[in-house]
């Protein structure tokens, strides 16, 4: 869309003061963005450090104990959190300290403007401000994803325990999760409650993924 410039109302001395204030604000913008980025970096660093205190409130910390589907979800959340955190760190550092590489002169100095130095500084201020804004957004995304990963790890369903099917000489086939084994007596947690089996009367045992056959 084309922008048109036309004459405005008659100017007054106050208008020059406003124009001058705008110029001064733009001239000092890069310094403000840099110092603002440093403050955000410190604040967000403290926020992430505070998350470590979550470790004091213990929950499940081993995702191998989780249901495989939920373990995969936790893995994806942690990967996304790591990616967002790394990108946020790079962006905020870029806003605070500038690009970590040199630009070609033609990209920095715009020969088409009357004040290339001022234009270059404003372009850098604009790019730094954008980097800071996205860095802050991504930092909060990182925190949210990390918290979600911890939450799913703590409250996600447990991994299914190994099941055992026992074939008894009387024809019954109790099947369930092993509770205990002592003095030749095996206790299983079946869908119908706990069942104790005398192993001297067992013809065989089979580890199974699920108890589909009739249980004792």
């Amino acid at each position, binding site marked *: 869309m084309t*922008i048109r410039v036309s004459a405005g109302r008659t100017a007054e001395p106050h208008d020059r003061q406003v124009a001058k204030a705008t110029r001064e604000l733009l001239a000092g913008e890069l310094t403000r963005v840099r110092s603002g980025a440093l403050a955000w970096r410190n604040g967000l660093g403290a926020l992430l450090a505070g998350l470590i205190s979550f470790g004091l409130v213990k929950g499940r910390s081993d995702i191998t104990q989780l249901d495989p589907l939920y373990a995969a979800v936790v893995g994806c959340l942690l990967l996304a959190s790591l990616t967002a955190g790394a990108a946020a760190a790079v962006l905020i550092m870029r806003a605070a300290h500038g690009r970590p590489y040199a630009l070609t002169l033609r990209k920095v100095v715009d020969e088409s*403007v009357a004040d290339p130095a001022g234009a270059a500084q404003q372009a850098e201020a604009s790019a730094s401000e954008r980097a800071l804004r996205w860095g802050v957004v991504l930092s909060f995304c990182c925190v949210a994803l990390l918290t979600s990963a911890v939450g799913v790890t703590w409250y996600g369903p447990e991994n299914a325990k190994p099941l055992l099917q026992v074939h008894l000489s009387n024809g019954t086939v109790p099947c369930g999760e092993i509770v205990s084994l002592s003095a030749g007596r095996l206790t299983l947690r079946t869908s119908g409650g706990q069942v104790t089996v005398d192993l001297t009367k067992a013809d065989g045992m089979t580890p199974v993924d699920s108890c589909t056959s009739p249980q004792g």
Partner: protein
Amino acid sequence: MTNPIPFEIVTDGTYAVAFAATCTPHETRRGVQLTGTCPRCGDPMYFPVPVRVFQRPASATPAAKTEPVMCTCRITHPRTPEGDEGCGAYWNIELSK
């Protein structure tokens, strides 16, 4: 090469029309960059009109449509006060799409 005219904070009804005639607006992510010629001193100048500035005080926000513009040429004019720039000319423009 002619000597630059002395610095003087001044406006004239013709400045805005003359500047609008030489001005090339260029839209950026954060506003409009105006490149043109100062109607008083005749030197090339560049004036960015931002739509937002990082941590900009609300009191300095310009009026919605009328944008005050001042000469920002890089020529050193005699009697320019410390910390000032351009030749001192100023005027108002309107930007529209």
